[in-house]
C-alpha cells in the first residue's frame, strides 16, 4: 500500500554538512511552526512589556503582551512535540503516529 513512502525520505542530510546539514536535519514542519510562532511571541512580548500598549486602540487590554504569551506557549508545544517524537527516516508509515 505505501511502498512509495520508503523512497520518499531521501538521505539528504548525509550528503550535506555544516549549517545546511543541520538545517535540513531540523527541517520538520513542527520545528518550523514552533520557531516562527516563538519568534513572534518574543517580539510581541517585548512590545507588550516595553512598547506603547496603545490602549486607546485596543480599548483597554495590553494586546501585544497577551498575544505574545499565547504565541510562546503554542510555539513551545510544537517544539516539544518535534523533540519528543522525532521523525524516523524510512519509517514504514510516517503518518501513523499522530
Amino acid at each position: 500500500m505505501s511502498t512509495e513512502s520508503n523512497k520518499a525520505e531521501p538521505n539528504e542530510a548525509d550528503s550535506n554538512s555544516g549549517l545546511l546539514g543541520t538545517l535540513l536535519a531540523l527541517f520538520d514542519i513542527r520545528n518550523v511552526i514552533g520557531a516562527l510562532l516563538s519568534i513572534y511571541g518574543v517580539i510581541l512580548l517585548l512590545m507588550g512589556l516595553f512598547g506603547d500598549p496603545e490602549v486607546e486602540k485596543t480599548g483597554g487590554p495590553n494586546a501585544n503582551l497577551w498575544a505574545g504569551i499565547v504565541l510562546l506557549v503554542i510555539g513551545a508545544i510544537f517544539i516539544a512535540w518535534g523533540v519528543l517524537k522525532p521523525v524516523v527516516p524510512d519509517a514504514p508509515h510516517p503518518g501513523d503516529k499522530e
Partner: protein
Amino acid sequence: MHTGILAADTLIQANAVDYLLIAIYFAFVLGIGFLASRGMSSSVDFFLSGRSLPAWVTGLAFISANLGAVEIMGMSATGAQLGLPTVHYFWIGAVPAMLFLGVVMMPFYYGSKVRSVPEFMKRRFGTGAHLVNAISFAVAQLLIAGINLYLLGSIVHALLGWPLWVALIVAALIVLSYITLGGLKAAIYNEVLQFFVIVAALLPLTILGLYNVGGWDGLASKIEAASAANPDTVASAAGQLNSWPGTALTGFSSDILSVVGIVFGLGFVLSFGYWTTNFVEVQRAMAADSISAARKTPIIGAFPKMFVPFITILPGMIAAVLVTELADFKASGGEAQIAGGAGGNVNYNDSLLLLMRDLLPNGLLGLALAGLLAAFMAGMAANVSAFNTVVSFDLIQEYIIKDRPDEFYVRLGRWATVSATAIAIFTAALASNFSNIMDYLQTLFGFFNAPLFATFILGMFWKRMTATAGWAGLVSGTLAAVLVGVLSDGTLGGLSVGVLPLSGQGASFVAAGAAFVVDIIVSVIVSLVTKPKPEGSLKGLVYSETPKEDLVDAEDAGRPWYARPVPLAGVALVMVIILNVIF
C-alpha cells in the same frame, strides 16, 4: 501615536516592528522553499511530494490552500454586508462536501494513481472530457489568481501608499519568485505555516473586536440599531443574526425557496463541485502517505474549517458596526462614495484592514498584515502552480509537443508561470470592478465546477456512461450556467441583461443548479445512444468495477475509531449539525 517613515498618508500606519514581523515571515517562506528544493530528488517528489506526508499536515494544507482571498476578504466582506447567513459557505457549502470527498471519492483518486484530476477524467472518459476539464480548469485558475493578486496589491497599496497598478506588478513579481523556488512540498509546508500565522493574526483581532463591541450581545444590539435606522438599505437584524433562512444571502423573497437554494445550489451543487473536483484541493490529499491518510486529509481539514467563520465572518460583522466609514457605507446600502478604502473608495472588502487599523497596536498589526500577505500570496501561488502543472503536463505534453526530455517540460512550466502571472495582472484589473469579490467567485465556480461534479459522480457510479457523454455533458452544463448568468440581473456585470429577476448569490445558486441538471440530462441521453467503454478498462475508476478491497486501507481495521476515516467523518458531521442548530 507613531509616525513611521512611510506612514504619513497611508491607510495603515505600520512602524519598524511591524515591518520586522513581515520580513521574518518572508524569510521563513523563502527558507522553506530553499530547503525543500535541496531535499528533492524526483518528479514524484515535485508534483506529489513523494506521497510521504502525514494526514494532519495534508489536512491543514487542504484547508489552507483555500484560505486565501476567497475566505478571508470575501467572507469577512459578505459577513459585514449580510451577517451570519455567510456561515453557510462553511457549514453547508464546505464541510459536507469535504467529508464526502474523504469517504466516497478519495479512494478512486488515490487508488487509481493519477497525477491530476484532469488525468482521472482522461482515464474515465478519454480525450474530449479531458480537454474540456483541463482547459476550463486552467482558465478558472487564471481568473482566481487575478483576484488573489488584486487583494494582495490592495494591501500593499494600503500599507505603502503606492498606486494600485504599481502594487499589482510588484506583488506579482514577489509571487513569481516564490513559486519558482520549491515544489509541492514547499507549497504544502508553507500552507501549514500560513494556517498558523493566519489564526495568530485573526484570532486576536476577533477577540479585541468582541471586547470593544461588548460581546455577542453588544454586537447584536448594535446591528439591530443600525438596521432599524436604515430599514430600506440594510438587511434586517433578524436576517443578519440568524443563519437560516438566509434570504439576504440568496436574494430570494421566499424563506422556503431560500433554504432550498442554499441546500441544493450552494450545499450540493456548488460546494460538491468545488471541493471534490478542484485539483488545487485534491492535489493536497494525493500527497498523503497512504490511502487512509489521503481519505483523512479532507476529513481532518473539516474540523478547523468549521471554526474558520469565527475568525473571518465575525470580524467582518464587527467591522460593520465599529468602523465608522464602513458603518456609513453599509447604512447607504453600499452606494456611498467614501474615501479611504484600500483600492479607492471604502467597500466591504476593506472590513478587515479597517478593523485592524482601528484596533491593533503596532506589533500585532504587523502580525496581522503578515497573515493577510501570506494568505493571498499562497493563494495565488497555488492557483498559478496548479495552472502550470495542468498546462505543461495535461495539455502541452499530452496533445501538442510529445516525447521531449523532462527538462523541456520543466522549462515550459517556468514560461507558463511567467505568462500566468502576466495574465493575472489583467484579471486583477477585472476583479477590481466588482465591489464584492464573492459574487464574482461564486459565478465562476458555478460555470466551471457544477457540471464537473455531475459528470464525475455519474461517471464513478454508472458504468454505462460513455466517453462522448463525458464531454457533451460538461460543455452543455457550462453553457447552461453561462446562459443563466447572462439572463440574470447583474451577475456578470454589464453582460447580464436582467431578464430573470435574480441577483447576487441567488443567481449563482440557480446557475449552478441549471448546470448540474442539464449536465445529468445530456449525459444520460448521449450515453444511451453512444457506445460504452469496454468493461475491463474501468477498474479503479467506476464503483461497480472496482474490487472493494482496493477502496479501503486494510490496516484501518486494527486502528482506534479516531484514526479511521469514516467514524471521524461521522463526528465532524454531528459537530456541524450542532453548529447549524445553535446559530
